[in-house]
């Protein structure tokens, strides 16, 4: 009874686009327009995977339609993260999960888990879980899951270290949480290359303003120095006048 019981070859290689951080609320807004869109095929289930990143987080959204009769009230999507580009089960070390406790009412929870000896451990060591996740259902057949996954080094030893410029395997897993781990019904693997952070754009106006303020403050400083010197001269003059 292992969580990572099998994996499929990672066919797609995704290079995320840089974009502003979206709201992780399960609502696909304009904020995802710049994402890298890929069709994914769970076994018999088609979906759309959107991936983008900023300098600190990787953002993943999964959208798919499923006949209402095939849905589970406690369904979940888990993103298992490998510590390399290998999609062998033993290489998956981290997991971010959004699971519904009541799909009809839209109650869900985000779980920052980790994989230990092929098993998914629910309680990550870090109480302040890293990353974020949300889901929303539309018309009872379309559902959108959104995730934010921190990049670079995190304080949590159980989090995958997603280094910039490297490629990592991500396993997107769908199933029924109540039947976990046997309830895992579908999974799909992709390779995502984490892009190196963009250098902050040089704001010419800000530089000009900074230089101007340095010059201005230097001038004021010079004025105050001259003024102080004049005060000293005046003191001497007054001293001489008053004997």
């Amino acid at each position, binding site marked *: 009874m292992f969580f990572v019981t099998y994996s499929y070859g990672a066919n797609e290689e995704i290079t995320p686009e840089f974009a502003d951080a979206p709201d992780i609320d399960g609502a696909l807004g304009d904020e995802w327009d710049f994402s890298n869109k890929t069709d994914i095929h769970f076994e018999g289930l088609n979906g759309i995977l959107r991936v983008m990143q900023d300098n600190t987080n990787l953002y993943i959204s999964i959208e798919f339609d499923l006949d209402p009769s095939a849905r589970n009230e406690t369904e979940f999507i888990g993103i298992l993260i490998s510590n390399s580009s290998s999609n062998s089960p033993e290489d998956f070390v981290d997991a971010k999960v959004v699971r519904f406790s009541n799909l009809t009412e839209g109650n869900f929870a985000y779980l920052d888990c980790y994989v230990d000896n092929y098993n998914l451990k629910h309680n990550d060591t870090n109480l302040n879980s890293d990353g974020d996740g949300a889901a929303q259902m539309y018309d009872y057949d379309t559902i959108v899951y959104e995730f934010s996954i921190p990049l670079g080094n995190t304080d949590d030893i159980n989090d995958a270290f997603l280094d910039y410029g490297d490629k990592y395997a991500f396993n997107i897993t769908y199933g029924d949480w109540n039947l976990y781990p046997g309830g895992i019904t579908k999974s799909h693997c992709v390779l995502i290359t984490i892009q190196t952070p963009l250098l902050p754009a040089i704001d010419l106006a800000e530089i000009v303003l900074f230089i*101007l*303020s340095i010059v201005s*403050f230097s001038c*004021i*400083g010079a004025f*105050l120095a001259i*003024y*102080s010197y004049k*005060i000293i001269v*005046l003191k001497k003059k007054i001293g001489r006048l008053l004997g």
Partner: protein
Amino acid sequence: MPKFQKEQGKESKIREKQSFNEDFAFRSLIITTIVGVACFIISILVNVVEIYSILNIQNSFFDLIDLIIRISVVLLFFFFMTISLGNYKDLLGKPSNWQEIAFLFFLSIIQTMRNIYVFGFTVLGLVIFTCYLYLIQDA
């Protein structure tokens, strides 16, 4: 002879009083200049170095405090330097003229050029203070 002695004593008293007034004015000049320069140094720290950005405090309350400090130091700079200049001119035996006040106004304004809110509120404060100075002066 006694009359001469009396006049000499009166002159000495006037001279003492003048000396006291000048000492007082000079002490006031020194203190206000030192405080004005201190405000200018704090203004460098908050308006150019932007010490709050270095501390990386992400909090709207601290943003407000930062804004208030930025505006206050510039207004205090103008306030103390105006008094200092007034004392200085007084010791020279001349009154301050509007060009000198305008010059100090300008020196204060250019300290706020990096932030539009600091600029706006400081201009408002300076205008109010300058109007006050204008209204309280003797006709």
